[in-house]
C-alpha cells in the first residue's frame, strides 16, 4: 500500500476550526457581499433614525403644504418636497422602515411556508406529494387581484380581535406580510420540491436510512443543506418583488393606508408626475433597486460561504 502513503502525503494540512468559523471567514472574504451587507445595515439604521431627524429639523413628514410643492433641496428639506409639500427625505426614511420590514419578513415567511410544503411533498412523495402540489396549483390558478381584495377586506374586528388592536399599525403591517406570504409561497414550494426529489435519490440519503435515519433527519441533515443554493437565489429575488408587491396592495386600497409612506406607494404616486418631477420617482426607485441588489449580493455571499466546494 505504498500508493496509500502518497495519497496521504498529498493532502495539505488543514487548520482545525468549526464549520461556522469557516463560513464566516468565507463570507468576510467576499467583498461585494460585505459591502452590500454594510449598505443594508446603514440603510436600516438611517430609516430607524427618521423620527429623531424629523425632530431635529423640525419637520413633520405628514404635514402638507400646497403652497410649498415640488421644492428643490434646501436646508430645511434636504431632498425637497413632494406634490403635497411633504418632506421627501423623511418620507423615504419612514417608508424604508415599512418597505424593508415587509420585504424581509415577507420573504422569510414565504420561504418558511414554501420550503416546508416543498420539502415534505418532494421527500415523502406519493399521495402527499400529489395533494400538496395540486393545492399549490390551486393557489397559482387563483386570480391574484380578487383574492387580494377578499383577503384585504377581511375585517379582523369581526374575527374576535378588539377594534383598537385590529387597526393598530402593527396588526396592519403583519396582515400585509401574511397576505403576501399566502399568495407568494408557491414559487419556492415548487422549486424546493424539484430539488428535493433530485437529492432524495442520492446514495448518502440511502446510507443514512440503512443506519436508521428517519425522514425528518434526512430532510434536515441531508436534503435541506444540499438545496440551499437555488432557494437562496429565489429568496433574494423575492425581497424586491415583495417590496413592489406591497405597493400593489396599498394601491388597491388596503394594508398600508396612504398617509403612511412606503417606497412602493411613493413610487406608484410618482408615476403620474414622472415628467414634471422625475426626482420623486428616482429616489424610491433607486432605493428599491439598491436594496434588491444588496440583498442579492448578500444572498450570493451566504450561498458561497455555505458551499464547501467553493474556494475559500
Amino acid at each position: 500500500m505504498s500508493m496509500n502513503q502518497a495519497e496521504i502525503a498529498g493532502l495539505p494540512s488543514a487548520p482545525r476550526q468549526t464549520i461556522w468559523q469557516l463560513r464566516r471567514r468565507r463570507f468576510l472574504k467576499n467583498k461585494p457581499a460585505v459591502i452590500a451587507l454594510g449598505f443594508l445595515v446603514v440603510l436600516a439604521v438611517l430609516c430607524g433614525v427618521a423620527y429623531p431627524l424629523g425632530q431635529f429639523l423640525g419637520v413633520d413628514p405628514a404635514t402638507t403644504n400646497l403652497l410649498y410643492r415640488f421644492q428643490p433641496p434646501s436646508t430645511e428639506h434636504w431632498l425637497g418636497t413632494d406634490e403635497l409639500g411633504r418632506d421627501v427625505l423623511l418620507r423615504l426614511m419612514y417608508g424604508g422602515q415599512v418597505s424593508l420590514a415587509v420585504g424581509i419578513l415577507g420573504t422569510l415567511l414565504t420561504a418558511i411556508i414554501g420550503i416546508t410544503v416543498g420539502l415534505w411533498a418532494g421527500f415523502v412523495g406519493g399521495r402527499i406529494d400529489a395533494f400538496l402540489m395540486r393545492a399549490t396549483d390551486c393557489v397559482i390558478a387563483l386570480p391574484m387581484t380578487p383574492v387580494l381584495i377578499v383577503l384585504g377586506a377581511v375585517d379582523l374586528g369581526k374575527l374576535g380581535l378588539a377594534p383598537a388592536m385590529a387597526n393598530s399599525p402593527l396588526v396592519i403591517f403583519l396582515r400585509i406580510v401574511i397576505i403576501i406570504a399566502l399568495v407568494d409561497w408557491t414559487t419556492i414550494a415548487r422549486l424546493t420540491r424539484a430539488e428535493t426529489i433530485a437529492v432524495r435519490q442520492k446514495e448518502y440519503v440511502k446510507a443514512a436510512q440503512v443506519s436508521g435515519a428517519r425522514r425528518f433527519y434526512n430532510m434536515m441533515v441531508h436534503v435541506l443543506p444540499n438545496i440551499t443554493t437555488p432557494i437562496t437565489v429565489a429568496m433574494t429575488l423575492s425581497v424586491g418583488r415583495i417590496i413592489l408587491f406591497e405597493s400593489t396592495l396599498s394601491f388597491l386600497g388596503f394594508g398600508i393606508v396612504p398617509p403612511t409612506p412606503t417606497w412602493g406607494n411613493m413610487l406608484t404616486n410618482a408615476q403620474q408626475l414622472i415628467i414634471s418631477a422625475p426626482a420623486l420617482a428616482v429616489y424610491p426607485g433607486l432605493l428599491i433597486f439598491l436594496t434588491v441588489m444588496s440583498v442579492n449580493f448578500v444572498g450570493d455571499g451566504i450561498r458561497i460561504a455555505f458551499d464547501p466546494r467553493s474556494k475559500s
Partner: protein
Amino acid sequence: MAALLDVQDLNLRFPIGGGLFRKPLTLHALTDVSFTVEEGETLAIVGESGSGKTTLGYAISGLLTPSSGHIRFGEALSGAVEDRPVQLVFQDPFSALDPRMMVGDIVAEPLRLAGVPNKERQERAETVLGQVGLNAESAQRYPHEFSGGQRQRIAIARALIADPKLIVADEPLSALDVSIQSQVLNLLNKIKRERSISYLFISHDLGVVHHLADRVIVLYLGRIMEIASREHLFATPSHPYTQALMRSVPRIGRGRRQPGQSLKGEIPTPLAPPPGCVFHTRCPKAQDVCREAVPVLEPAPGRPGQMSACHFKD
C-alpha cells in the same frame, strides 16, 4: 460457522405505472430467492444488468420491503441499537457522500443516529479512518477534496464504524480505476480478516469475484440460477447461464473466444418474465420442458454443494 443471515423465499414486486383507470403492471424484481450467509463469509452475487442484484442488496439492508418471504439475521444481532447488523457500500463514491458534510461527520453518521455522544464518535471516526488508510486530518475535510478511491475508503469507513456484521457492497469497485480497484479490494480483504465481517458482494466482474468470494450466487431476472462455492463455480459451472457468463469473460493470451458461444439477445423484461425457466429464451439447451416447468434449485450431479436451477444441468 453459524448462519448470520437467512433469506427465505424472498419476493419483491413493484407496481409500475397505473393511473386512475389503468391497472398497474407488476415488475418482478426478485422471485423466490433463498440463501444463507455464514459468519465471516463473502457471498458474491453476479449477474448482468437488470438481474436484480442491487434490488437484493437493498432488500437485505432494509431499504426495500419484501412483498413476501423473510430476511432474518442471527439471534445474536437482534436487540443492540448500536450494532446495526447491515451497512451498505455503494457503487458511485461521488454520490455516496454528502458534499455538504465534513468527512468526520459522514463517517460518524451511523453513530450519531445511534445516539453516541459527539466527542466519542469523532474519536471513533478518526480511528476508523486510520484503519482504511486515511489520516485523522481527513475528518476535517470535505468529500470533494478526495479522489474516487479515497472516497470509497471513506464510504467503507462509514460502513465499518458501527461494527456491522454484514456489509452489502454494491459493485464497490466498478466506478474506480483498475489500479485503485486492487487497493480497495485488498482493503476489503484486510477488513474481513481482522474483523471477521461477512460481505454480500454484488458484482459483475468475475475476476474480482474469483479473488474475493467464498461462495457465489448467479442471478438472472430476479431468480437464482446457481449457488456454489467459488471453486466449483469456476471449475465446473453447472447452469448454462453460468457457463455463458464464464465464456464472456475477456481473456488475454489464452485463445480467442469461440464464435457462436456467447449469449445472444437481451435479458427479457421483468414486467413479463417468460414462463417456465426464465432463461429459456436465450438458452442453447432449451427444450419444451423448459418453456413449461420452472426448474427447482437442486444439487448438480455428483456435487452436493453446488445448487443449480436447470432441467439439463451439468
